[in-house]
């Protein structure tokens, strides 16, 4: 029997945290348009009832993108019904959700290729190209 098989009765309750969070998202949304600021809200550290999580999901709706990354366990990125508002869920190796953020931006930060990685990639590509060209020259000669 797994944990999910145990029937849990939970009266429907609200912590009252949903409304403020929705307004926070809306504010971050307008900041993105006005100043291009990337916004991030940590949902995991807020006391939400299961019902409120569901209400939030319903409010945001589903968008076009649903990506799964394989980084230290899975990370799932879903654009909401509002373009520019993303759900970012981090999972560990056992698929337990260990982090839940709302990101407001063109793409979630984690999706971007990281500058250092790009630099390192450029350096690596340069080296490889140089090595191949050296080899070709050797072959010609």
């Amino acid at each position, binding site marked *: 029997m797994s944990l999910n098989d145990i029937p849990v*009765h939970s009266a429907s309750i609200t912590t009252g945290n949903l409304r403020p969070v929705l307004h926070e998202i809306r504010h971050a949304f307008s900041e993105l348009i006005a100043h291009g600021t990337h916004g991030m809200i940590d949902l995991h550290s807020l*006391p939400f009832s299961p019902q409120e999580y569901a209400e939030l999901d319903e409010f945001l709706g589903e968008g076009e993108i649903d990506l799964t990354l394989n980084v*230290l366990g899975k990370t799932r990125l879903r654009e909401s019904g509002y373009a520019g508002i993303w759900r970012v869920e981090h999972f560990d190796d056992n698929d337990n959700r260990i*982090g839940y953020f709302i990101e407001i931006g063109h793409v979630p930060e*984690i999706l971007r290729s*990281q500058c250092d*990685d790009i630099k390192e990639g450029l350096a690596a590509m340069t080296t490889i190209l140089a090595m191949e060209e050296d080899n070709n020259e050797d072959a010609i000669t």
Partner: protein
Amino acid sequence: MRMQSPNPYEPTLGEHLRSQGISRRGFLKFCGLLASSMALAPAMIPKIAAALEQAKRPSVIWLSFQECTGCTESLTRSHSPSLEGLVFDAISLDYHHTLQAASGDAAEHAREEAMKEHYGKYVLVVDGSIPLDNPGYSTIAGISNLDMLKEAAAGAAAIIAVGTCAAYGGLPKADPNPTGAVSVSDIIKDKPIINVPGCPPIPMVITGVIAHFLTFGLPELDSLGRPKAFYGQSIHDRCYRRPFYERGLFAETFDDEGAKAGWCLYKLGCKGPVTYNACATTKWNDGTSFPIESGHGCIGCSEPNFWDFGGFYKAISIPTGASGKNAVYAAAAGIAAGVAIGAMNKKSKAEAASSHQTVTVEELNQESGS
């Protein structure tokens, strides 16, 4: 966890993590989760990343005194490669007598060497309380806990007291405290001490504190020496059952309708309102739940003297001790004293009545005439 001998070149944490095959994207995820675990705003993530990138892997010496190994269990039972595991990997654990491979003299030797090598820089982690009544109650390699703590503390950059025993004395200190147990802070006065209480503490909190120490140094502490980031709010404040408390809806027993409906457990002894910990948000068992979600009140394990808090199943407002009987004894004492003072009053009044001299008009006129 790796036991490694002192290395002349100390790689930074970032380098170390990458050498473990963790990408920068992974690092970013790690930093995001770390910020969440340290209860920091997501805006802090780049700063954490930058700080971690540059941080040196610290040497950590872990001493276990009068303890049950629950704190170590809490930490190591977290599934790997969990966030906790990653952080733990980021340190150089040079001595931990439960986890290390070495034993006997070799183990103690490793400790002494690490203390010498990193004098003034290592982090000392302590779990368990220290007995003061008789040093023989708890020794390691023939050295009393007190002596070992003092010696190890002397060269430590900071001390992390993990678990309620190390932080406040915990179970060993519970009434009648047969070993004369005390906390680390009762003995060590000249070093920064971070208390990470809990019985056991939440693994995420242990690593969160270590991460904070690595990135931003000593965290801000409350009056009981706990990092405010994790212990800043009471269980009650962040409890999902709080709305029931507000509405005055309480479970009266563990099997009544209220309990089934998930009402507030205050009357069943929940210590949430006076307990500071991150359980309600961080949760246990890889984020599954925390005790109140399972229908049991908070027992206040991250607070000093929680064993003697008047019973796990008594509401916090209830006085400890036999109050009802006390009131009866008091009433009896009151009656005894009342009878005595009543008799005195009666006597006094009777004397006044008997010594009354009849007032005559002659007297009245004499007085007014004078």
